[in-house]
């Protein structure tokens, strides 16, 4: 029985650049050349970089919104259930459903749930924590947390070809090019 190998021999080809401008132009060129499975790496957020690799919209805001709604509803629901249904107390003749008094905990629960779901959602969507990643096999890649910028075209891309892609990457005039082993 012969199967195609589940994973190609390498993860991708990594090119190193000296400035965010070079990185973004290289990423745009790679996108224009038809590559889609690729990623840009940088020591700080570059808005243009995610645009250049064709990643336009993150789902984080939606998660924050849903988390906030859930938090607000459960915060208010909790207080309503406690003060009206489970444990009604007459406090100075105020109505059991003293909704204005419930606003503060409702608000705080909205913020708490929105914030926590946003943080967990962001890390989950990013697949973090991820202690191992093939890119860490490339020694030069450690400069991505310092002052260097990288573009990696992944072998999983249908257009990927070790020789052609490498030639294409060289045309982008990077500082260095490395194959990323698994």
């Amino acid at each position, binding site marked *: 029985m012969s199967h195609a190998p589940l994973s190609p021999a390498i993860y991708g080809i990594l090119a190193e650049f000296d400035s965010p401008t070079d990185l973004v132009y290289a990423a745009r060129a790679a996108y224009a050349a038809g590559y889609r499975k690729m990623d840009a790496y940088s020591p*700080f957020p570059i*808005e243009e970089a995610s645009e250049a690799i064709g990643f336009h919209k993150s789902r984080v805001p939606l998660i924050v919104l849903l988390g906030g709604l859930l938090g607000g509803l459960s915060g208010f629901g909790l207080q309503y259930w406690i003060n009206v249904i489970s444990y009604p107390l007459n*406090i100075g003749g105020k109505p059991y459903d003293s909704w204005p*008094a419930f606003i*503060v*905990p409702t608000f705080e629960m909205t913020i708490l749930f929105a914030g926590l779901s946003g943080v967990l959602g962001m890390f989950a969507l*990013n697949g973090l924590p*991820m202690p191992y990643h093939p890119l860490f096999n490339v020694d030069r890649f450690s400069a991505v*947390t310092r*002052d260097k910028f990288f573009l990696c075209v992944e072998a999983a891309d249908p257009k990927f070809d070790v020789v052609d892609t490498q030639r294409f990457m060289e045309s982008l005039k990077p500082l260095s090019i490395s194959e990323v082993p698994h």
Partner: protein
Amino acid sequence: MQRGPEGKTVLMDVPWPDEPPVLGPGQTFGSMTDTIADAVLTRPIGLGWLAGLAIGMGLVAILMAAVTYLFLIGVGIWGINIPVGWGFAIINFVWWIGIGHAGTLISAILLLLKQTWRNSINRFAEAMTLFAVACAGMFPLLHMGRPWLAYWMFPYPSSMGVWPQFRSPLVWDVFAVSTYATISAVFWYVGLVPDFATMREKASHPFTKKVYGILGLGWRGSARHWKRYEALYILLAGIATPLVLSVHTVVSFDFAISIVPGWHTTIFPPYFVAGAIYSGFAMVLVLAIPIRHYYHLESMITMRHLQNAAKIMLATGLIVAYGYFFEAFMAFYSGSTYERFMMQNRWFGPYAVFYWTLILFNLVIPQVLWAPKIRANTRWLFLISLVILVGMWLERFIIIITSLSRDFLPSSWGHYVATRWDYAIFFGTIGFFTAAIFIFIRIMPAISIFEMRTLLPEAEVKAK
């Protein structure tokens, strides 16, 4: 303000001519990374740092002893009595939580307003917030008398079948402060993740590398990750902004919802929030001035930061002054005997010395900040910040003690004198705060490295 593309007005921090820059000259991505990371990784532990930590830990030891005695004997070792049931515990709680607010203001509100100068001070300001909230949180717990039952404050299905009473501002406080502590902690940690990755790559000792590696979660600077990260960061700032305003508002509700003379007033929420930011910025300066000096960070925490902080103190100080003025005005305008007496008692009563010191420290002395020369002098800024911190503590003392000790019925009047245990616990928390800050600047990058990189002109994508 500045004209941006398409003639739109853009909120930006634009220096006047001759104003000091946000970033000193000659910096590169690499040099900034090294300066900030090496302060943690390669700088030897100095005598000054050890001495500072020793003082902090010494005070923490006193705190431990005082708390142990408190648990053995009870809150009777404090100066609190009937009618003054709140005493130092609540004064210190309000003071500490207020100090924390400047951290959130710097990290969240200034981020939303695109005040990029904040990038070099937000990290330790957030740390300051966390430690200040930790100090604040101790006081209500200790004040309970039976702190081991603190979880009764939270709504949980207990075998007793009882639930918290949600019409009480004290329960709101539980929600506000615990949410604030949680959101501040995650905001801080999220900001640290890319920097932990930097520390992971820079650390040479295998153990240090491993610890930073775990904390850095395997961050690799992917553009997709950054996109989600930025979206989250700005949203966290967006929700932390109303949160920080709500926290001191809720703290002020602890007073304003009651009917005690001097407390039952609608000006409390804005005036508490302004006072919180006032004292918080004073603490930021008290920390920033020595840190930039001893760690040679003058090119990142520049005079511009200190001057901006001084201006914010001046502005919030004036809001606080407005609050004091209207407290006095309304006391007489209200026509209420009790309110009027409350004000006269503050001015001429047994605590008048504290009141006038407070006016001197919070209103009079800080006015020297109008002078650009004073704002440009770090020694003066440091001293004035200390004065404001004391002044804001006195403000809470006056609000709590004068009102409680002289309420409606002369037969129930009392007098409050703090005991040595009150002072031991108060100074103990200052020691806790100091020790925590000292430890923090040795184990984590005290300035946000990745946000500093974005300040360089090279960080912008230019047209080719």
